[in-house]
Structure formats: C-alpha cells, structure tokens
C-alpha cells in the first residue's frame, strides 16, 4: 500500500506519543473514529466482496445459501468458464478492446494536435474558438444521438460503408465527445511549457510538426497519460454510447452483454457475478498499477 500512500495523501503529521500511557489514551480518544471508519470500510467493501465470493461458488450453492455463510463455502471456476465460453463473454471482451483502444488513441492524437494549435499557433478568433470548446464540455451526448444516427443511416444506405454495423460510428462518437475535455486539459498543460524552448526551435527553423513531435509531446507525457487513462476507462466502462452506436449484436461490448444477461437472464447470479468481475478486471488493474495517473485523470475529468 506504499504506492497508495503517496497518491492519495500526504504524510500524517503527528507528534510521537512519549509513554505507553499516552499511547493508550490516544488510541482510546480516537476509538469512535476507528469504529466509524471500520463501518465505512465494511460498507464500501462488503458488496463487492460478496459478489466476488459468489462468482466462485457453484450455481446450486448460490441458490440455496448466502455468500456470508462462510462455513459452507465451496469454490469453483466453472462460472467463469461458462460465462466466457458458452455465453460469449470472451467475444464481448474482445469487442470491448476493439472499441476502447481506437477510442482512446484517436482522441488522444487529435486533442494533442488541436491543443497545440490553441496553445502555440496564432489564428483568427482563437480565444473565442477556445471558449466554444469549453462550452462544448457540457453538451450531453443525448443531443447527438438522433441527428448522428439519422446521418449515419442515410450515409450507410447511400454508400454502404456500414458505419453503424461496424465500430466506425462508436469510435467517431467517443472521439468527438472526448475532444472538448482533451483539448481543454492539454492546451492548459501545453501553455505552461517554456516559451523560450519553442521560440528557439522556431528560430532554428523547426516546423510546427517538428516542434510538436520533438518538444511538446515528450514534455507533456504526464498530462497525456492522465488523459489517456481517463479516456480509456471511460470508454471501457461505457454502456450508453455502445447501446446507441453499436447496432450489430455480435459487436456488443462487455457492458452491453452483461446488461442483457441481467435483464433477460432471470438473475442467473453465477453468470452475472463472474461477468461483472471480467468487466471490472482491467479497470481494477489500472487502478492498482497506475493509481497516481488514474486519480489525477479523474480529478481533472471532473469538469467533463
């Protein structure tokens, strides 16, 4: 947990207690806080642990007794095998990857480019256009659904490129709705880079693409990483965009597949529990390994 200590808090400054007596009084004084925090920890952990335990229990056991009856617990990995291979969650997992990776890389690249223009290039009405981008942060995705679907339907009928049958529509939609936040975040990072460095490169004859690639991007890795992780998890966890923009059932992501398991499966908890943990796996891995970037991305993302 050492890693978490520096990501989530500063050091707790407390004078060291001198004697055993002082130490005991101190613990006793804080007893109500310890108890309250223990309850908090229980409330925040138990629901998830309950489902985790359930995901490893045989189906008949789940139906007959609760996961909290610890002395009767038997474990199996069959639920995971079944949900992955008979219920097609392995395909949904691959679909989720197929949706998430381009929907992270494309907006990352486009937002970096636009942010560079807003930070270091001059063009007409730049400040007004940036204000417009900030205003777009608040436009709900719902506004885009009908017009974009209608447009894509007509486009697909006329040209047969099949944006709605493939992933094209969902990639483009995720990209577009990630851009205002990305441009805002990265532009505000890029303008903090030293002006002298960029001016010097310009005088030496570097092109904008050269400056962008060799100076701006390498110096902005922390901001780009935070945005990238935020966007990746956003897309990974998304249900609504997939619901609207992925119309081929074979291309549904995990969230969509699990949602349909819950509403049409008559609460087959052995499958649902395993499915939910397959969905949570990658985000939890990211959370524990890249927590610093993750928390920062989320905090910065609070404007989205």
């Amino acid at each position: 947990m050492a890693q978490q200590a520096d990501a989530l808090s500063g050091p707790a400054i407390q004078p060291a207690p001198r004697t055993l007596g002082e130490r005991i009084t101190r613990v006793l004084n804080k007893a109500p806080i310890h108890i309250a925090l223990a309850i908090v920890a229980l409330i925040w952990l138990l629901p998830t642990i309950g489902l985790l335990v359930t995901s490893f229990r045989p189906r008949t056991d789940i139906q007959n007794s609760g996961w909290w009856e610890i002395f009767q617990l038997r474990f199996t990995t069959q639920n995971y095998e079944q949900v992955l291979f008979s219920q097609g969650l392995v395909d949904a997992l691959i679909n989720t990857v197929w949706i998430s990776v381009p929907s992270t890389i494309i907006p990352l690249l486009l937002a970096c480019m636009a942010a560079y223009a807003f930070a270091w290039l001059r063009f007409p009405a730049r400040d007004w256009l940036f204000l417009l981008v900030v205003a777009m942060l608040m436009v709900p995705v719902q506004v885009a659904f009908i017009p974009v679907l209608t447009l894509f339907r007509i486009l697909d009928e006329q040209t047969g490129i099949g944006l709605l049958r493939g992933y094209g529509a969902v990639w483009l939609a995720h990209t577009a709705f990630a851009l205002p936040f990305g441009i805002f975040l990265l532009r505000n990072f890029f303008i903090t880079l030293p002006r002298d460095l960029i001016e010097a490169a310009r005088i030496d004859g570097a092109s904008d693409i050269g400056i962008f690639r060799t100076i701006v991007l390498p110096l902005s890795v922390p901001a780009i990483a935070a945005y990238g992780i935020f966007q990746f998890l956003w897309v990974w966890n998304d249900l609504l965009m997939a619901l609207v923009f992925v119309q081929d059932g074979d291309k549904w992501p995990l969230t969509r597949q699990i949602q349909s398991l819950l509403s049409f499966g008559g609460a087959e908890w052995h499958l649902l529990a395993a499915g939910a943990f397959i969905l949570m796996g990658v985000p939890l891995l990211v959370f524990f390994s890249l927590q610093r970037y993750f928390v920062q991305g989320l905090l910065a993302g609070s404007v989205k």
Partner: protein
Amino acid sequence: MTVAPQPIEVAGTTSAAGRGRWRPESGFSRSAIVFLLPAALLLIVFLVYPTIYTILLSFNRGRRGEFTEWVGLRNYEQLFFRDPAFLDLSRFPPSGALWNNVLWLVLYVSFVLFLGLVIAVMAGRVRYEALIKAVVFLPMAIAATALAVIWTFVYSPDPDQGVLNAMVTAGGGDPIAWLGNPGIVNFAIIAVGVWGSVGFATVILSAALKAIPTEIIEAARVDGASERQIFRRIIVPMVSLPMSVLAVTLVVNVIKLFDLIFVMTAGGPGVSSRVLAFTMYSEAFQGGLFGKGAAVAVIMLLLLVPVMIFNIRRFRSERVI
C-alpha cells in the same frame, strides 16, 4: 510526477506565450489548419450540427429522426402536462422522470458532499488514511454497469442471496422488494449512486482539508473551541469553494445519469425510477418518438447551460481560458 494536469493547478500560470493576439494581416496559417482540422470536423459533425438539429427536431414530430411535420411546442407541452411518466404533480409525492431527477439532485448531491467531507475529516486523523481513501475511491474505477450488478445482488428479494434482506429477515421482518417497490426504488438507486461517488468527494475534500493551515485549528483549540465548533466554523467555510466545484460536478452527473438506471431497473417498476437521460433513450429508440426524445435532450441541454456558465466564469477567474 512533477506537474498535475489539473485545470486548477495551472491557475495563474497562463504564460504570455498563449496569450498572443492574432494580427489581422495573418489568416489561418497552413499549420493551424493541419492541426485544427480533424478535431474541428468531428466537433462540427458530432456537436455543433447535432445541437442545432436536435433543437429544431424538438419542435417537429420527427418520424425516423427526420423533419416530417412542424408541431411547435407540442412535444414540450405533452411532456410537462400530459405525460405522467415525465412529470406528475397531481399526487403527493409527485412522480415522473423530471421529479426523480430533482430527488436525485437533492439527495445524491447532499449525501455525497456530507459523507465525503465526514470521511475525509475522519480519515485525516488516522494513520491508515490512504487505505481508507483507496477503499472508498475504488467504485470510481468500476463501470456503472458493474456497480449495478453488485447492488442488484445486494438488493435481491431472496434472503438467501441479497445480504440486505438476509439482515431484514434475521431481524424478524419480511423481505423487502428494494427495487420492486415504487416508493423505495428511487432511494435504493440513489444510495448506489452515493456509494459510487463518495470516494471522489473524499479525495478532493481531503486535499482541500490539507490546505487549511494547522495554526488556525490549533489557535481555535487553544481558545477553547470544541471539535464540533471547529468543524462547523472553520473546516466547512474553508472548504466551501472546492465543495461548490464538486457540487457542480455532481449536478452534471445527475443530469447525465443513465447506465445505473438502465441496468438496475430499466426505469421500473412501471416508470417509477425513470430519469431524463433514460426517458430520452426510451422515447426515441424504444418508442420511436424522435421529436419527443429530442425535446428531452434539449431540456437536458438547458439544465446544463447554467453549469456551462459557472465553469466558464470559474476558468476565467482562474485565468485558464
């Protein structure tokens, strides 16, 4: 990690570099076009054009999402006055999607802020602060779909599966249909929303608390202030700015809320747990009423305009735009 990518942290650092004014003799340079064009195209196709289209469509019958018949304000009129699933003020307590959003707004925002602050204050006084914050923050990493599965299981009406009903029946009561009772369902889902967001508030407020100079609190203690007075008179006022920023974020969450409702109850039982975003989806894509769906989307947009203005003002005062 040297620099955090937070808008708040770059406050005041806007260098002269970014502030250069455009001179009329220079137009869009070639590089400006290259760097801006892809993003601009996508923003126009997915945000600018759809916003105009949806606003116009909301005054139209809008079969198949196309402009078929101008109906003026009829979609709005129908939503507000003739659709009990959207708003029903004829009974007490009122019901409908818009009312449920109000309920969410009041309960979700206040509980997240309150619990977030209380946990942040308590966690700040123990050695395992980071651990507690990580535990409470964990749901933020998880998809709303997964939260919905976790909690649908907790709320299961079968006392052999749902831990809540196991507790109720152990106490001698009858199992409660948490998600099946129209009078309970909204509170049950709001609790899930609160559970999922408290960690976010805790982390932000904990950072704000650490910024309070310890001398102030020490001085108050010396002057004989009680812990309660310190909390109410010092801590609360000193974190009120981050609180208001946080509250705005939570308001946005409420207006955009969809996944949790869709997965847990699909707006049910009946229509009793519907919210705006769910209504938009269901009217347009399940009911085929695109004009009405567009009207709901416009209502969502209008509710977000004050937030837009608040954010622009805030960023202006922080000099980030």
